[in-house]
């Protein structure tokens, strides 16, 4: 450990592993440390199942759960948008070669106590039970408008300036009712609250396009999920970092981030060893004095031996419960994966219900999500604080990531990473730095 590094990265969560990989690829000498014995921190997938039960203080699982090591349970549920930022990062860094994916089978939205498939094209919209007949026509016209929309071709704007007019105005232009607005904004554009209605429509149009572009890539839904669980993602980036020279140390407690003149970081201490460095990149848990609590997220892991009703027995799915449908300010998210992804023993399903905490009784807040699931064999509830840095790092050279939010996708994750990289190195990440002779087959 007693060496000098360009950067020391603390924590092997997804964000830190992506950063570590990007830094190593950029030619920096990187030391990557985790206080845990395993890779992934909060982004790890827990294996075997016994360990998950122990973690939550539950008595060991019985035989009906099959073999413990057939399970890989994520602590934080997320899906990848097929055309989103993380997929771009995976492709450009070559990390995609370490992973295999499956498409999530369907996406559903909650309305008036039951769930309906999110209509993704005009044909599905016409068949959907979300809308009445006349509303369907209006929604269809809206979808056609969005699909034909080109930002650089004002002719396609149809007498509507989306960079100044807000989204509410666009909905009104097509006469869409509140329910349709609800699922468009929350299940297609994936907004977490209704702030977007007052913002320029262009933002929402782009998000709906991202949704349909992602959908176009692999079919059934716009979402992807990696075989063996999300824990494979940080590991993939850790490997990238290692093959570009990064050094890994696990099970290494960090006692102090050593700061020198002008408040600038000079190293990291573990016991009486100090590793010198010019920069530190870390998650909030390593620097409690440089972050502030922004909110809380409640997550409930549910082990079930059946799929969710009314999803055509999908082996994987996402359900969005828009805030307004249940009188809340933030949406509730349900994600489901199963044995088909090698994350559970044969016949088993893992559902996760999550939302941003709004009351003193978080458990009660996720009830509408739990009610959709049917009988649950085992539930694990956790409430975690959500932190953001108070230190931008420009002076201290300590760059801190934000905690993982309630979102069930990675778009905000990637934006945070790219932003940190830019603050830390003063430049955008240059994807051309990655030699593409990594493997022999593709290039």
């Amino acid at each position, binding site marked *: 450990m007693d060496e000098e590094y360009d950067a020391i990265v603390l924590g092997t969560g997804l964000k830190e592993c992506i950063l570590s990989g990007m830094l190593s690829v950029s030619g920096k000498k990187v030391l990557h440390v985790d206080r845990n014995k395993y890779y992934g921190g909060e982004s790890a997938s827990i294996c075997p199942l016994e360990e998950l039960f122990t973690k939550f203080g539950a008595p060991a699982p019985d035989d009906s759960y099959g073999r413990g090591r057939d399970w890989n349970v994520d602590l934080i549920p997320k899906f990848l948008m097929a055309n989103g930022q993380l997929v771009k990062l995976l492709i450009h860094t070559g990390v995609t070669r370490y992973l295999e994916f499956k498409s999530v089978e369907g996406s559903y939205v909650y309305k008036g106590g039951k769930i309906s498939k999110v209509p993704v094209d005009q044909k599905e919209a016409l068949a959907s039970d979300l809308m009445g007949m006349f509303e369907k026509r209006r929604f269809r016209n809206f979808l056609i408008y969005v699909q034909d929309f080109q930002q650089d071709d004002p002719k396609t704007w149809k007498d509507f300036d989306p960079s100044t007019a807000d989204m509410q105005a666009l909905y009104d232009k097509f006469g869409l009712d509140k329910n349709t607005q609800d699922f468009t904004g929350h299940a297609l554009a994936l907004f977490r609250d209704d702030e977007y209605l007052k913002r320029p429509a262009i933002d929402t149009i782009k998000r709906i396009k991202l949704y349909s572009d992602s959908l176009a890539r692999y079919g059934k839904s716009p979402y992807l999920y990696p*075989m063996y669980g999300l824990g494979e993602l940080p590991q993939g980036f850790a*490997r990238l970092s290692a093959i570009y020279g990064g050094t890994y140390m696990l099970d290494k407690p960090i006692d102090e981030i050593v700061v020198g003149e002008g408040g600038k970081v000079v190293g990291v201490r573990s016991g009486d060893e100090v590793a010198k460095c010019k920069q530190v990149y870390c998650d909030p848990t390593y620097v409690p004095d440089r972050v502030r609590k922004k909110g809380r997220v409640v997550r409930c892991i549910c082990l079930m031996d059946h799929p969710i009703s009314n999803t055509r027995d999908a082996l994987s799915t996402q359900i969005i419960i828009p805030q307004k449908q249940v009188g809340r300010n933030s949406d509730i998210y349900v994600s489901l994966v199963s044995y088909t992804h090698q994350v559970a023993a044969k016949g088993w399903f893992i559902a996760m219900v999550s939302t941003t905490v709004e009351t003193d009784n978080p458990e009660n807040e996720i009830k509408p999500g739990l009610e959709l699931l049917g009988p649950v064999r085992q539930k694990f509830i956790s409430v975690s604080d959500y932190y953001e840095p108070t230190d931008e790092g420009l002076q201290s050279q300590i760059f801190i990531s934000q905690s993982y939010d309630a979102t069930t996708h990675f778009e905000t994750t990637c934006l945070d990473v790219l932003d940190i990289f830019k603050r830390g190195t003063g430049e955008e990440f240059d994807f051309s730095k990655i030699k593409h002779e*990594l493997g022999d087959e593709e290039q």
Partner: protein
Amino acid sequence: MATIKIPEQKVILCGEYGVGKSSLFRRFTNDTFVTATDRKSTLGLDHYAKTYRVSDRDLKLQLWDTGGMERVASITSSYYKFAEAAILVFALDNPASFHVLSQHLLDIVTYAENAKIFLCGNKSDLLDDVPQITDAEIEAFCEQCHNLITGTYKTSCKNGQGIDEMFSDIAYQLVQSNRSRLELQSMEQHGFKITPTEETAEDSCLC
């Protein structure tokens, strides 16, 4: 005419730091040898595929190196995923590297349950008259692990001895054991790789 895809099998290298895994990888990829322990030697290249012909069938061995992660930390469990074979490497001049093999074996059977396991004693060029690890010891080890080991080899990355023979034999063994399985394999069981679309291949920047 339809092209037949050559089946590709992931083969991973396991064992202590310094036993010659990267050197085996280097021999496999371009048949060279370096003495320096320079970790940059395999920088950026972490797996490589080569086609072997086994009694009129083609099989691609895709060999993976650890990337040096085992130097201080443990190897990620994802390294083992999808592996069809694992080569358990020790150095013939280093008894310690032989005696910890059971630990590595445990990792393999845990994370790559279905992988065939091969044992490789490397640095055979360093053997003088009194071997540090006897054939009897190697046999005893194989017996202890309930014959999980499909084949044992002695190699030298320095002079190249035994290397081609080892990889050819591994290819042969895999073809034998996969004969029926390869044909049954249905795509449904598997995930897919994500690949760039035309459009994403163009914009090399996320901004």
